[in-house]
């Protein structure tokens, strides 16, 4: 048992027919950290999440969660995990409090502690004054907060968040980020999948960039940026023929580029030497992402 790792995957493979959703994935989530699985839709993030709760059985590889081997000892691992699914699966005809009560039972909280656990979750999700409301009367942001509260009712050691803010307004997203950040600062270990770069950059200590079921890079966001995209990026705007020209010149100078609709980004132009007019900006995780996966994301 690897005591410092909350999650340890080695060569995890999951196939669906001829599609290999997870293709030899290695993943380490050290205790007390937040790891972000960043990848476009279809990269295998959700399948990875399902492997971790044994709702998908791997075709190959070693999987350990909280020291328990998967899939055979998954139930013991699940007892100490909280899972926030991508798709809302709350009981909509029940009240906020009843939803938490049900999960307090499913997560085996002993009777004397149940009341307190539900209150703590309600407070944490700022839903104490909505406790008696049916879920179908809540806003999208509140439902998502309840979904998170439900996953935390038993104080799990590890929380799995699958696209926690997908489809939410920017303001609601900020709220949820604050919630996740609070959780992180309390020392809860988090694995979060996302296809929002900003989300990964803000919340994750370590980012693992996933593409076609594989890890293409892993490390702290800032280090990944420096390593793969350099410090500065030159953004050149112009008509398509001009952009093609600029791209060719950069390639000739040994620099990497990416097309971003109306502009060309030339990566790794650190210092002042590059002789093209344009806007300089710091390199970011999106540059790394596009460079490594070849895919644009929103």
């Amino acid at each position, binding site marked *: 048992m690897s005591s410092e790792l909350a999650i340890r995957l080695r060569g995890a493979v999951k196939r669906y027919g001829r599609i290999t959703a997870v293709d030899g994935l290695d993943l380490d989530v050290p205790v007390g950290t937040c790891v972000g699985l960043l990848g476009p839709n279809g990269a295998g993030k959700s399948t990875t999440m399902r492997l971790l709760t044994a709702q998908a*059985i791997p075709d190959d590889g070693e999987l350990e969660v909280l020291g328990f081997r998967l899939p055979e000892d998954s139930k013991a691992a*699940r007892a100490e995990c909280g*899972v926030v699914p991508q798709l809302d699966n709350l*009981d909509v005809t*029940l009240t906020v409090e009843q939803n938490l009560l049900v999960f307090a039972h*499913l997560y085996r909280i002993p009777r004397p502690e149940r009341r307190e656990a539900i209150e703590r979750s309600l407070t944490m999700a700022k839903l104490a004054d909505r406790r008696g409301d049916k879920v179908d009367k809540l806003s999208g942001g509140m439902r998502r907060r309840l979904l998170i509260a439900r996953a935390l009712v038993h104080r799990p050691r590890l929380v799995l968040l699958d696209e926690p803010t997908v489809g939410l307004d920017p303001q609601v997203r900020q709220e949820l980020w604050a919630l996740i950040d609070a959780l992180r600062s309390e020392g809860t270990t988090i694995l979060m999948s996302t296809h929002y770069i900003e989300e990964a950059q803000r919340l994750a200590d370590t980012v693992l960039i996933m593409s076609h079921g594989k890890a293409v890079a892993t490390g702290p966001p800032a280090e990944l940026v420096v390593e793969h995209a350099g410090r500065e990026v030159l953004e050149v705007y112009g008509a398509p023929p001009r952009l093609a020209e600029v791209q060719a010149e950069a390639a000739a100078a040994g620099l990497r580029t990416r097309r971003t609709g109306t502009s060309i980004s030339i990566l790794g132009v650190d210092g002042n030497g590059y002789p093209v007019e344009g806007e300089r900006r710091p390199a970011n995780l999106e540059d790394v992402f596009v460079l490594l996966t070849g895919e644009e994301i929103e």
Partner: protein
Amino acid sequence: MAARTETVRLGRLERTAITGVLVREVVNFSSYWRSSTFSSTVEPTIYLLAFGFGFGSLVSRVGGFPYVEFVATGTVATAVLFSSAFPGMFGTFVKYKFQRTYDAILAAPVDTEELVSAEAVWIATRAGVYGCVPMLVAIAFGLDPSWGMLLVPFIGWLSGFGWANFGIMIAGFASSFENFNYIVSAVLTPLFLTAGTFFPLSQLPRWAQILGELNPLHQCVQLVRDVVFGLYGWDDLLRVGALVAFGLVMWRIAIHAMERKLID
């Protein structure tokens, strides 16, 4: 926080896991018990009244009983079937496909085996209770109460457990709601009409009687009649055995079907 037992592998069919799923059902039931009770009791009661009094005016006695009482005891099985096979099929499918409830439950320390078992136990319990309704209606219309009637909820439970698992199994194999039409038309309706609810199977040709004995609904009808009218015999033990076997087989197949559906 309570001490955690890190090294213990959790067993199969744990009581805490089953209780957790049952709690969810009971809490949910508080929000829909009216409609569920209505549909599970009104329909068999209408059968009872329509057949019992409709045919009852033409045929006064069947198999040695007043026709109304013959039908009343028979429709107990109908009520059990309606309140177990249908929730098994439709309820399971909705929870799996549309509400994604099972995804949430299986992310908790609950296995498919425990989930299916708890759902079947819950549906069977409801079926055992709803199954008594036609009998109670018949008492209101003059059926004499008997001690044997106290066994009816248990017969309903046992029978309902099998049919609940049958429904869950069908939901596990079905890819869409439309698939249920085939099951209702080709399986449930024929079994329901040849269970001996409305006419005794003894009037049928020999081969049809033998086939009838293979119908679990017929076993339920006969058991209910025997305990209500106090006609216990050794063959009733065989009937209980048949229902137990039906329940066990359906239970295992339902678990298998749902594992295929829920675990990739």
